[in-house]
């Protein structure tokens, strides 16, 4: 089995997930996928050459196409292409969590605190925080 044949099989799996995301109208933002592909492919070109150059990985010359970017077989770039389609498609296919994840600034908890009776003596400070919340949100 050549490298390209193996890649075709795994790209088939990627295509199935991408089509599933299209069919369920939960496809990723393709523009973002395309933009992400540019630095990913450039970084693959740089780091794959380094990794092969220092001898982290080697290839059977009879099973690769013989097309190289530097010393990196062109087939290696299939990993980056697969990642940039498969992972965002999986991400958008999965339903979002109701409570979204770790947050550094807890704007919602500070507004909840504003209603706590303990904080009433610091009323002026609290209203300042509520204003600050809007600014904090925009800064992200």
């Amino acid at each position: 089995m050549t490298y390209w044949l193996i890649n075709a099989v795994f790209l088939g799996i990627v295509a199935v997930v991408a089509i599933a995301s299209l069919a369920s109208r939960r496809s990723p933002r393709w523009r973002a996928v395309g933009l992400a592909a540019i630095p990913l492919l450039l970084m693959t070109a740089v780091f794959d050459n380094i990794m092969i150059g220092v001898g982290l990985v080697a290839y059977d010359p009879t099973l690769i196409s013989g097309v190289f970017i530097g010393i990196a077989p062109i087939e290696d770039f299939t990993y980056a292409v697969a990642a940039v389609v498969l992972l965002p498609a999986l991400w958008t296919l999965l339903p979002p969590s109701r409570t979204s994840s770790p947050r550094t600034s807890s704007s919602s908890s500070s507004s909840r605190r504003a209603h706590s009776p303990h904080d009433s003596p610091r009323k002026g400070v609290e209203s300042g925080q509520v204003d600050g919340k809007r600014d904090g949100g925009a800064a992200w």
Partner: protein
Amino acid sequence: MSFGYLAALAISITGMVVLDARFHLFFWRDARRAAIVLVAGVLFFLAWDVVGITQGVFFRGETPFMTGVLVGPELPLEEVFFLTLLCYLTMNFYGAFTRRAWLARRAEAEA
């Protein structure tokens, strides 16, 4: 035996986590979904590697930079970290290029 490559990968993954935390790109956007996507991605690429290795397409090179610890035939421990980095990097880029829309949606939800 050397930890050079493993250390480089660990430092790079740490960088991904720092950027994620600062800009809310992946785990800091939706930790549960990120965990599923990352694990699924790493397993998918490991399977790809295993097929490539069993078919003899690629194999571990002769290098002084790896620990020599193998998680499978010709499959170095470092590859698991490399694939984690590849998946995290991919989703951080996707997160960065969707960030404006995500911020707008979140501002709407909080309004």
